[in-house]
C-alpha cells in the first residue's frame, strides 16, 4: 500500500460513518457552488466611489497611482514618472499587446524576462480590486512574472474597465476571461519587511516602489470640439 492510500485510509476511517456516495456529491456540489462569504461593504463599491477607494487603498499600501486618458498617452505618462523619480529612461516589458504600436519616444524599451539588475519594469494587470488596492497579474509571455518581482520600480497598467469592487466580482470576471497562467499574482503595494528591528522598511526583495497607471476606456474620452 502506498503512503497516499495509507493517509487517505486513515482519514476515511474517521468519517466512515458517512456513506461515500453522499459525501462525494456533497463535496462536488460545494466546490461547484463556490458560495460567497459575508461580503465586506468595502468590496461592494461602484463607479466613482470604486475608483476613489482603489486609489486610496493603493496609496495606503505605500503605492502611488496616476490616471491616463488613453493607452496612447501611456509613454508620455511613464516618461514623466521616470523623470520625476530620477530614473533612467528605460523600461523592461514582456510581449503585452496593449503596449505594441505605442510611440515610446525617448524611453528605451527592452523586451524579455527580469534580469538581476532591473531599474524599471512595466506590466499590465488583468484586474484591480478596489477593496484593498490590489492588482491581479497573470504570468506568461505578455507579462513575465519575474518583471513583477525584480524591478526596482515596478509600473503597472490597469484598464479602468478591469477594476473590480472586491474578491467576489474579481473571481467571477477572472473565470469568465478563461485564463490559465501558471501564477496569479495579487500585488498590494511595494515589497516590505519588518524583520530587522521590527521596523517596517520598503523594498525587501521585490520592488522598492510601485506605481499604477489607470488607463481610461476609449469610450470615456470626450474629444473637445475644435
Amino acid at each position: 500500500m502506498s503512503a497516499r492510500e495509507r493517509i487517505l485510509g486513515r482519514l476515511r476511517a474517521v468519517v466512515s460513518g458517512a456513506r461515500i456516495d453522499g459525501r462525494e456529491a456533497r463535496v462536488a456540489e460545494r466546490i461547484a457552488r463556490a458560495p460567497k462569504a459575508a461580503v465586506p461593504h468595502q468590496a461592494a463599491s461602484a463607479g466613482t466611489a470604486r475608483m476613489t477607494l482603489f486609489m486610496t487603498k493603493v496609496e495606503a499600501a505605500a503605492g502611488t497611482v496616476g490616471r491616463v486618458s488613453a493607452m496612447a498617452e501611456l509613454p508620455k505618462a511613464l516618461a514623466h514618472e521616470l523623470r520625476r523619480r530620477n530614473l533612467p529612461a528605460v523600461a523592461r516589458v514582456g510581449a503585452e499587446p496593449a503596449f505594441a504600436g505605442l510611440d515610446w519616444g525617448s524611453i528605451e524599451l527592452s523586451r524579455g524576462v527580469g534580469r538581476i539588475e532591473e531599474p524599471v519594469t512595466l506590466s499590465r494587470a488583468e484586474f484591480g480590486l478596489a477593496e484593498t488596492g490590489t492588482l491581479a497579474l497573470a504570468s506568461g509571455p505578455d507579462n513575465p512574472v519575474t518583471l513583477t518581482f525584480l524591478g526596482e520600480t515596478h509600473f503597472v497598467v490597469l484598464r479602468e474597465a478591469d477594476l473590480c469592487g472586491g474578491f467576489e466580482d474579481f473571481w467571477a470576471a477572472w473565470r469568465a476571461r478563461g485564463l490559465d497562467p501558471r501564477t496569479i499574482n495579487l500585488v498590494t503595494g511595494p515589497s516590505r519587511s519588518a524583520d530587522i528591528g521590527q521596523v517596517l522598511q520598503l523594498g525587501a526583495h521585490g520592488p522598492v516602489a510601485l506605481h499604477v497607471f489607470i488607463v481610461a476606456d476609449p469610450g470615456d474620452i470626450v474629444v473637445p470640439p475644435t
Partner: protein
Amino acid sequence: MTMHVPTTPEFKANAHAALGNANLQAALRGSRGNFVAKRAKARAALPEFDDLRDRARDLKNAVLADLDLYLEAYERQVTASGGHVHWAETAEDAQRIVLEICRAAGAATVNKGKTMIGEECAINDALAAAGITPVETDLGEYIVQLRGEIPSHIIAPAVHVTVPEVEAEFRKAHTHLPPERDLSDLAELLREARGVLRAKYFEAEVGITGANMLIAETGHSVIVTNEGNGDLSQSLPRVHIVMASLEKIVPTLEDAATILRVLARSATGQEMSVYTTFSRGPRRAGDPDGPEEYHVVLLDNGRSGMLGSDFQDMLRCIRCGACMNHCPVYQAVGGHAYGWVYPGPMGAVLTPALIGVEAGGQLPNASTFCGRCEAVCPMRIPLPAMMRSWREREFAKHLTPGAVRYGLGIWAYVASRPALYRIATKVAVAALRLLGRGTIRALPFGGGWTGERDFPSPQGGTFMAQWKARR
C-alpha cells in the same frame, strides 16, 4: 550546520533562561504590543470581521468533514495542470521525497521561501547533510539561519534578534564586502541583505516554498508574503517544490478570499499582505519564465490522527500568529523556550499532537488561561479548552511531576468535602493575615511567587463567610 533537536521537554529551564536573557528581553520589549495594536486597528476598520471569522471557521470545518475527498479533488487538479503530488506520512518521508527531487534536478543550492512545514521536517538539516546548500530568503529566516537558530515566531522569525546582533551577523557572513562599510542604519542593513540574496536567487536549481492554502477547485497552492522572496524563490529556479500539510485545503477561490480577508488582518494588521500568489503547475508552453517542474509534498506527520480527536479544531489553524502576539507567556519568554517549530498557544496545542505528549506535555501547562488567544483567533479555535485536554492526558499518563500530582490530590480531597474545605480556607485566611497587612512579601513554600512580586493578603474573610453575612 547543527541539527535542531526539540528542546521542548526542557521548557521550564528554557523559560527560566529566556527570562534572564537581557538581549532577548530587549528584543521582546521592542516588539511587544505592535502586532496587538495593528490587529485591533484592522479589525475596527472592517465591521464584517467577526462574520468572516465565522465563515472561515465553517468552511474549514466542512473541509475537515470530507478531507479525504477534498485532497483527492485537489490532487486531480494539480495532476491535470502538469504538477506532481507526493504524499508523505512522516517528516522523514518528506525529507526523502525532497532530496530525491533535488538530486534529480542536480541541485547544489536550494532557495527557501518561508515554510513552517519545511521547519517541521528539518529540511535544511536534511539538505545540508546531503551536501546541498539551503539558502533561506525570507529576511528574518535568513538572519536566523546565519545565527544557526530556528525561527522564534511563525511570521516574524527573527523577532528575538536585536539590530546590533543583525549587524554583527552580516559582518561575519558577508566577508566579500568592505569591512569598514557603514551599517549603522536599518536601511543599509536591508540594502545589503537585498543585494546578497538577489545574487543567490539566480544560482539555485530548486526553490522550496510553503503554502498558506491549497485550493481543491483549481489545484492552486497559495503563498502570502510581504517581501517577494517566496516568488523569486519559485519563479527563478528550474524546479518548484511546495511543502504543505494535509489540512491546508480550502474548497474554492471564494473560500481562499474569505481566509485572506482574516489572515493578514490577524497577523500584521494589513488588509492584504503585499504578495498573494496562486501557483498551478509548471510554466506553460510559451512562458519565458517560471519553473519547468512543479511538485507538492503533502505532509501528514500525525495530522490524520488529530482528525476526529479532541484536537481536530486545531487543524483549522491558518498560522497567523495572533495567538502568540496576544499571549502573556509567549511575550515574556519568546518562541525559543517552546523548544520546537510552533511556539505560543497554537504551539502548546499542536506540539504535543505532533511530537507526543511525553515530549510536548509541558507546553499546555505554560498558560494562565486568560483566554486572549481564543478571543483573537480568526478561526475561532478553542485553544484553552484543548490545552486543558492535554493537561488531562498528561495527568492520565502519569507524566505530571510528583509534587503537582500530590498537591492536586490533596486539593481534590479537600474540595470535594465542603465542611473540611470551609475549615481549611478559614485557617488559610487567618494564617495569611498573620504574614502581612495589605501585601505579603514572603510566603512559606511560595518563594516562586514572592521572589518576584508581593502576594495580596486576604481582605474580609472567606467567600463563604461573606456570602453568609450578606444573606
